């Protein structure tokens, strides 16, 4: 955890080889049975932790967002294909875009926003990547270059009036190629008693998202926390400094590739592995 590159954690970043052959047995996991199966021409089934492999997919903007894949039937990883179900591979996709009618007053929100954006000279299709209605909640995926304009429209339009920026946080999807970092913004309209979620994605290589502090001053600390925890840079924030971790802390702890560190045990050199390297059934 020293130096400037703590992100190179225990979960290996996707290598070009892994991209070509997504189902690749890790050398230390291939036991003799699997080697035999490989020799017989069968594809070795080794369960790879979700998110550890670049799926080689182009960013999905209008379809359901794929964040990883699930292999096998019991969620276990790292112990070879002991169940025999390792050949089952299914993508993990977040709920896909919804089509009209969205239901409830979500249609009214979408209509108002479209009009407000048109007033600002911005087409809805360019600013809003997709609209997702799931679990009775409305999510707008906003293109990051238009986030501030969308925010202003949402705050000022009388039919929308999202006065309060309730929360800004992040989610790290290492399996969502080109859109690894998501900033999730929750808005509240006290006038209309509505809530709304904005989701803005940016790639790992260019972790920049415009700040909303100019629209809602309350976003200040929330954006600082998101920077602190995920390394998303909120451009235009007046003082984007760490808020929870110490100022000189290396790395961003909430990222999925952040090394967690194990605990050496005082018995014959044994160690307790870090939580992200223990066997899981998820």
């Amino acid at each position, binding site marked *: 955890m020293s130096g400037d590159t703590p992100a190179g954690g225990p979960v290996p970043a996707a290598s070009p080889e892994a991209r070509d052959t997504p189902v690749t047995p890790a050398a230390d996991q291939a036991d003799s049975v699997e080697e035999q199966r490989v020799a017989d021409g069968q594809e070795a089934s080794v369960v790879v932790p979700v998110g550890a492999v670049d799926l080689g997919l182009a960013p999905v903007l209008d379809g359901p967002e794929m964040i990883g894949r699930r292999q096998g039937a019991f*969620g276990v990883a790292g112990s070879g294909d002991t169940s025999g179900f390792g050949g089952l591979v299914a993508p*993990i996709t977040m709920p896909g875009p919804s089509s009209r009618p969205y239901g409830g007053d979500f249609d009214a929100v979408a209509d108002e926003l479209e009009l407000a954006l048109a007033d600002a000279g911005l087409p809805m299709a360019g600013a809003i990547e997709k609209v997702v209605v*799931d679990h009775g909640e409305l999510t707008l995926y906003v293109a990051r270059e238009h986030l501030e304009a969308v925010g202003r429209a949402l705050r000022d339009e009388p039919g929308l009036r999202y006065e*309060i920026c*309730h929360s800004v*946080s992040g989610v790290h999807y290492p399996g969502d190629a080109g859109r690894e970092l998501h900033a999730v913004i929750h808005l509240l309209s006290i006038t209309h*008693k509505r*809530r709304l979620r904005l989701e803005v994605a940016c790639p790992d290589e260019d972790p920049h998202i415009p700040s909303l502090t100019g629209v809602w001053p309350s976003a200040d600390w929330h954006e600082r926390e998101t920077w602190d*925890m995920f390394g998303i840079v909120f451009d235009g924030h007046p003082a984007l400094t760490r808020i929870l971790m110490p100022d000189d802390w290396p790395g961003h702890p909430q990222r999925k590739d952040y090394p967690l560190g194990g605990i050496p045990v005082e018995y014959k050199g044994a160690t307790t592995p870090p939580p992200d390297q223990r066997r*899981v059934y998820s």
Partner: protein
Amino acid sequence: MSTTYESGEAFEAAAPADPGPATAAPGYDTTEGRVFTVTGGDWDSITLDPAQENERIVVNMGPQHPSTHGVLRLILELEGELVQEARCGIGYLHTGIEKNLEYRTWTQGTTFVTRMDYLSSLFNETAYCLAVERLLGISDQVPERANVARVMLMELNRISSHLVCLATGGMELGALTAMTFGFRERELILDLFELVTGLRMNHAYIRPGGLAQDLPDKDDKGQDLKVRIQQTIDTLRKRLPDTANLLVDNTIWMGRTSGIGYLDLTGCMALGITGPILRSTGYPWDLRKEMPYCGYETYEFDVVTETSADAYGRFLVRLGEMQQSLRIVEQCLDRLQPGPVMVDDPKIGWPAQLALGADGMGNSLEHIRQIMGTSMEALIHHFKLVTEGFSVPVGQAYQVIEAPRGELGVHVVSNGGTRPYRVHFRDPSFNNLQAVAAMCEGGQIADVVAAVASIDPVMGGVDR
């Protein structure tokens, strides 16, 4: 302060020209300016230095300071007694709970979230469980008894939380009797929590799908649970006015809190402030009325508001809310009917059958006998459910409830596994602390204490 100046002047008269190295505090120059280490009574010698006159000094108040509500660090830029700039330093209680949640099952999550804002733990648990239940699609299946118990426990928790706010706030302003009264009354509620959940704090009692176990029928003295809770309500009804009477018309208390920490509705909207601070501006925004959950729309209570938008108004709002919470708890007692407290889904109801054992918690022997002796499948099922946990469908949900300090939001993301992919708590204290600058700048340093106490931040929730 006048005596200090007098003694300073007397001192100056005695040594008018040169305070001398023997009396001045040993200061040293840094790139940021001159730094003094003040120990004990050498303050006057610093103020005697003509070079220090009218200079702004930066005072770190906290993180270890008895009147900053825990490990809050206030960085105050002072000119004399006036606060020119106030900034908060937080993070001293950051424990990485959100990260830890990603390596535990969904059920184990309640054990962690209850430790965030430790004064309103049952709110954290409920908000988290409501969000998980929405992802599971079982929001409608949570049994009525579990819902009523959740509301009852939350409202009792609101009273105990407000009592701590009153008690510590009073202590910080020198009203020590309010402190002893507040903590005494809170103890009554913690006794109820211990009776129901087994623990005074950090309960992990509310679980996705319902409750960890049924409410006990009787208390440790063999008294009916409802009677016992009603007795506590009656005691609180009698005693809360005593605590209030200590302060409501108290000249000193009013002098310390009236007009202090002023933040009007516009400021609240800009800074995203909710809870008692927002209601002290006169705006009756309470999620229990506006966007109800857990069946709050069926309870009778009033939203308490004040119009002074200051620390005194927030104090009155909290007093009123405690009375309203007592009303709700009484209604809960009327509605508490026997029945299940966990969803009727063996894939989620975890652990299957709990009963209070001699140690206070434990599995019922009957259940163990059944799964060990007669049903191998039940044993396997129980084992897998406890060790692996249940899967939650892919998606995300945001659940907000009205916690004692404002709106508590929980954002949960699932990737379809047995552990959360991401959980974020939007804690009201975290957001509301942003108002410190707006409330304190331009005022006296002594009023910072009153203003921060009226925000009532709990650092466990702020730092998580």
